[in-house]
């Protein structure tokens, strides 16, 4: 059974990755998961300087999902390199640093610094978090700005560059093509879906930030559809995410066109979710006589003669 997949020049021993922001810096889950068994660890989003994030309440549960407005709280690139990376290097697992900025210069600065150090195997550009203040979202929703920021980062790094796309756009296939043309080695999708919840007793928003990002099983159909749209639009690999709770969900994403999957909110519900999902993928392969996981990518049968 061959579980290995490639994300550009980055080889993964299996297709199960963690989704940024849901796995801390890895150490939080080390007691529950053999980190070396993961396909890759994508760490919490990093900015050049530390960020405080949004005031609480930051999360609220919704039907089969949750809204969050953490606001990209993080320890900053330098602290990550000094305090967190040495721990992650103890494990035989690719480390992908997710990063973001408020300007093209900040994106470039973070990418340069992260590319400078040993032990980071790939970069994931977050141009899509919905929890920042107005003006920021444009990086992930305006094709011209997306092209500019991805091109600028591409020039300063030789690491595999993954661009994480926002679902909060009209045409995600267009955004993926723009990222590919600007030099991305892969795209990951989807980030959270912009949402909102109101306390009807107080008539106040349930999140201090008013709006937040919806994640969890509630958004899985959106993620699947967008992966399918993007799969037909680009030739670079896709990392699928959004509501993956078990092996079957991961397979669904791969049939839609994902080369690998990123597990997010499921980690909160079940700290061993990544391992359970990996085991579910193996079971599916055994049951269906699949020798190589990469052969199911985009394997959706969609010309339905019986319709």
């Amino acid at each position: 059974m061959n579980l290995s997949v490639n994300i550009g020049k980055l080889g993964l021993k299996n297709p199960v990755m963690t989704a940024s922001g849901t796995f801390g810096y890895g150490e939080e889950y080390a007691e529950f998961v053999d980190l070396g068994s993961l396909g890759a660890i994508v760490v919490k989003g990093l900015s050049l300087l530390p960020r405080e994030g949004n005031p609480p309440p930051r999360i609220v549960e919704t039907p089969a999902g949750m809204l969050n407005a953490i606001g990209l709280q993080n320890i900053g690139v330098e602290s990550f390199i000094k305090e967190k990376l040495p721990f992650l290097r103890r494990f035989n697992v690719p480390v992908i640093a997710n990063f973001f900025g408020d300007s093209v210069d900040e994106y470039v600065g973070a990418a340069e610094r992260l590319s400078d150090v040993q032990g980071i195997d790939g970069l994931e550009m977050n141009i899509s978090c919905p929890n920042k203040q107005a003006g920021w979202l444009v990086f992930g929703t305006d094709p011209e700005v997306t092209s500019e920021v991805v091109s600028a980062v591409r020039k300063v790094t030789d690491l595999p560059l993954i661009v994480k796309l926002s679902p909060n756009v009209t045409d995600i296939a267009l955004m993926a093509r723009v990222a590919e043309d600007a030099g991305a080695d892969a795209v990951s999708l989807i980030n959270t879906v912009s949402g909102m919840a109101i306390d009807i007793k107080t008539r106040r928003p349930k999140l201090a930030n008013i709006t937040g990002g919806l994640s969890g099983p509630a958004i899985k159909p959106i993620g699947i559809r967008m992966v399918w749209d993007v799969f037909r639009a680009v030739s670079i690999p896709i990392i699928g995410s959004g509501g993956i709770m078990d092996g079957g969900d991961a397979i669904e994403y791969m049939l839609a066109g994902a080369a690998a999957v990123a597990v997010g909110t499921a980690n909160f519900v079940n700290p061993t979710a990544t391992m359970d999902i990996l085991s579910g993928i193996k079971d599916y392969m055994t049951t269906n006589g699949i020798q190589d996981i990469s052969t199911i990518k985009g394997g959706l049968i969609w010309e339905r003669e019986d319709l």
Partner: protein
Amino acid sequence: MSRFFQAEVSGNIHLSQTHNILKLAPLQPHVRPAAGQFYLLRASETLDPLLRRPFSILRWDDMHLEFLVRLKGRGTLLLRNMRPGDSIDMLGPLGNGYPEPLKDETPILVAGGVGIASVFPLIGSVHAGTRLFYGAVNSTELYLLDDIKKLTGHIYISTDDGSMGFKGNAVERLIESLNDLAIANPAVYACGPEGMIAALLKFLNERGIPGYISFEEKMACGIGACLGCVIKTGQGYKRVCKEGPVFDVREIVC
């Protein structure tokens, strides 16, 4: 030993229409808790409700863990309806718990409503002179009184409606009686609703009395990864699930 394990419901006592005590028997080796720590309980295999629910550890022995559950929504309704023999998966013990009182300190426990669950393990166990100020909306929402009375005679009851004990909340009762009690070196250990905690923080800061408060916040992971449960402290946001749930009052920014 893992902090992620399966348990079987060994008892479920309905105290009222809104509160029950869930008694769980871990089926695997588990880590022993400390007072003030909490667990995340998952009552359902379905995806809705999705997240686990956090509960302070009320009481434990070698075989069992007990939790006081207040009915708030669908998650707690599932926990309320569990029957002996049902299985549940658990994550815990989590968080830091209450610090040991210093040798010359007299612990004063302050509990509002379901906050009694958090301070309950401290009653009668930390100091012979420990006092408990316990308040609720009315007399029917004061739970575990028989158990408490077996552990301490120093109990001061209050109810918002005056149906039992002092009319007012536990902090008002504490403020009124602190001088009369002439307690040497008081140190407060508290858990309760937001309004009560705000009043308590103000009082402790004004009087320079040391205190430790267990906070409640919405949380997802319980292990420090999601950053969903932070509160504001003098050193920036801290995670209730990891650096808390118990915080020194000097850390808290009002």
